[in-house]
């Protein structure tokens, strides 16, 4: 009798405990249960971010778009009272005036914020200022418009990148020998900065001689032609410090370089360039996490607009050295960032 009574008491107590537990659970997880039941909370703010990259034909920017979309999804999931939408408005090919037009239209359509990679800073400064003057905050990524009223820029420190190129190359050639700089377009500010970085860093290596900086139109053929001439002039050339990746955008590099004989360090590590790492034509590429262009820009816009946090004006992107050692890891990372044309043999390394 005593046992039965005790059992009844246990059952009763359990029901109370269960009730308290359920109440606590339903309070704690109301948001979750609402979502499961398809009930959206009231007063949800929708925040539209217009994303304007340089070119939608360039996979680099498609990866940035994926980064922005995923961040927007994550934030919308995390903050039940906020819905972040990415309005992708990128010209098919680089066109600064079209970008400026898109900015003006986005302001008129009532966008909440703009993130933009400037094809030309001078053409876009005015458009960015127009947006900011009309109450729309603007952030730049990849390529800045430093004199505009944008609140932040996310991108690489080009001078540091140049230094990194030289330091990697110095390690490969044993800190001595003749090297040349492949500089791309002489009028491009970011490339000039990188070249300057290479020249500053070489001061730490007294036995390294820079035979010259060679500029060229930014195409594969032009880059290859320049390289060929320089190598004929300096047959004892030990290495190339490239502040871009132009010679690797096709197949011609294989015709003028013997794998491993002349060491090469370049910038960018896109899928099309990876075969040169695999075959040892190029030893190191400084890869840019292009996915993060979109991811970080959206995060900073939300920090400023929704969370009212202080955002640094310059946010630096760190490049990642890619060599044969981490070719597999980098390839998988590219795939995760939305690049599709990566050979399977790299993915399983």
């Amino acid at each position, binding site marked *: 009798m005593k046992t039965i009574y005790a059992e009844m008491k246990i059952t009763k107590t359990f029901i109370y405990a269960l009730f308290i537990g359920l109440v606590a659970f339903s309070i704690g997880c109301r948001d979750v249960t609402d979502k499961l039941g398809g009930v959206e909370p009231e007063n949800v703010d929708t925040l539209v971010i217009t994303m304007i990259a340089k070119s939608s034909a360039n996979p680099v920017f498609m990866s940035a778009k994926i980064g922005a979309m995923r961040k927007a999804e994550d934030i919308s999931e995390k903050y*039940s009272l906020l819905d972040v939408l990415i309005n992708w408005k990128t010209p098919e090919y680089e066109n600064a005036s079209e970008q400026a037009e898109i900015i003006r239209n986005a302001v008129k359509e009532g966008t909440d914020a703009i993130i933009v990679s400037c094809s030309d800073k001078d053409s876009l400064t005015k458009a960015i200022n127009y947006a900011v003057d009309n109450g729309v905050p603007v952030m730049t990524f990849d390529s800045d418009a430093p004199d505009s009223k944008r609140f932040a820029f996310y991108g690489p420190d080009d001078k540091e990148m140049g230094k990194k190129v030289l330091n990697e190359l110095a390690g490969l050639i044993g800190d001595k020998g003749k090297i040349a700089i492949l500089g791309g377009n002489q009028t491009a500010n970011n490339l000039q900065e990188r070249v300057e970085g290479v020249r500053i860093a070489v001061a730490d290596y007294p036995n390294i001689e820079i035979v010259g900086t060679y500029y060229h139109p930014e195409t594969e053929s032009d880059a290859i032609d320049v390289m060929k001439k320089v190598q004929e002039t300096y047959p004892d050339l030990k290495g190339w410090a490239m502040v871009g990746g132009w010679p690797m955008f096709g197949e011609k590099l294989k015709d003028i370089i013997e794998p491993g004989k002349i060491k090469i360090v370049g910038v960018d590590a896109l899928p099309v360039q990876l075969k040169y790492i695999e075959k040892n034509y190029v030893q190191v590429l400084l890869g840019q*996490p292009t996915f993060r262009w979109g991811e970080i820009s959206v995060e900073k816009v939300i920090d400023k607009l929704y969370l009212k946090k202080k955002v640094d004006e310059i946010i630096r992107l760190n490049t990642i050295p890619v060599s044969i050692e981490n070719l597999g890891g980098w390839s998988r990372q590219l795939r995760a960032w939305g690049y599709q044309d990566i050979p399977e043999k790299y993915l399983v390394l």
Partner: protein
Amino acid sequence: MSGKEIHKTAAGDRISKGQKFAYGLGSIVNNLLGGAIGYMSIVLNVGLGMNPALVGTLQAIPRFTDALTDPVMGYISDNTRSKFGRRKPFIFVGAIFVGLVFALMWQLPDGYSEMFYFWFFLLGSIIFYLFYTMFATPWVALGYELTSDYHERTRLMGVMNFMGQFAWISLPWFYSIMENDALFSDSVEGARTLAIVIGVFVAVVGVMPAIFCKERFVAQDKKEKVKSKLLEGIKRNVVAFLKGLVITIKRVEFLKLCAGTFFLFNGIMLVGAFSSYITIFYVSGGDTDLGAKYMGLFGTITTISTLAAITVVTWISSKIGKRKTFIIATSITLVGSLLKWFCYDPMAPWKVLIPAPFIAVGMGALFTLMGSMIADVCDLDELETGERREGMFGSIYWWMVKLGMALAFGLSGFLLEGTGYAVELGGAQSSSTFFWMRFLDVSIPAAASLIAIFSVASFKITEEKAYEIRSELEKRRGVKITPETEAQS
């Protein structure tokens, strides 16, 4: 009696379902308290900006205080004489106070310095762990003595372990509850409220074992009562405590169980971080969303498999004995660990889920069988020393588990660094880094499982031996003690 005979549990040795359930509620509370601080401490960093190293220090310090308080509490409980018993008063008071302190320690005021929060939380943690020990140590000991039956002990531990899993299921939700902006202005406010909910739950549910479980033993009067001065009394108790401590840690069969637990549990804990890193950075190529999805699925499969494993292990153990069951279950975990080498495939990320049910079997068996086997050791200890010291055995066993966990967490960081992992590279780690991460992730738990099997393989208290010990003890006591018998000396 033949060596292969399987004993059936006598009706009088059965623990009622209500008592098992009440004891199992203690397991939910115990696991909730054990895990909640770890899962909620992220708020100290994210919400209050405390340095992660300080947060780590806050979690490490209690491991050292536990080393003293756990065995002392075990000794006190073993030697307490009161009309309510030697376990239940501590469980009752401990549950209420630990719930209260837990709720209070998270009421962190706004606008103070990092060091203020550090000292506030450290003081709160020390008081919390004192009451946690007051609740947990007698509760563990109570489980070892609720029945004298070899198989019924395993059933009780099965119920306890099964129910305890529900705490582990709820813990990963804590962060999203605290961060829920529909409910709280920030995670700090979320932590304050959540702590009150948990505190109330702990205080209400934690007293259930004290109310509904029946103690079977009371502390024995070793000698005639001597009125002595306070200092002499303390001295006598310290000597007795140290003597008991030495006897406990010299008990070879107990050490085998400790070794089995230490290696199996901590071997898996040690590489827990590796598995996450490999899933995110190798298998998912740095796609944190995809990695998180697979880790979530892995956790779900592990939980379901653990619940199933506990049920199956409890049943099999009644057919082939605890030692054999442990060896089989741990072997399955060993196979699961080795399977990971083939299942980390960047071309087929879903394969990471395959080892989950295999690994869960050993973990499900571990705390079901070990609790039951320690209860058998307590009987052997009584046979040889004349004392019932469940508190001492339980406290040392669990302190060893907690210390092992702390060491595992600390060591895993060094191991990860040793592989060459560089956080700034994200998914672009070198091939050799990924190789060593995978190698350690597979080899450490596999080797640890093997050592655990060897440690427990020579455990001498078989079913037959356990019944012999019991029979001897009952002869000596001159009375058969069953769960239905009122507490008696």
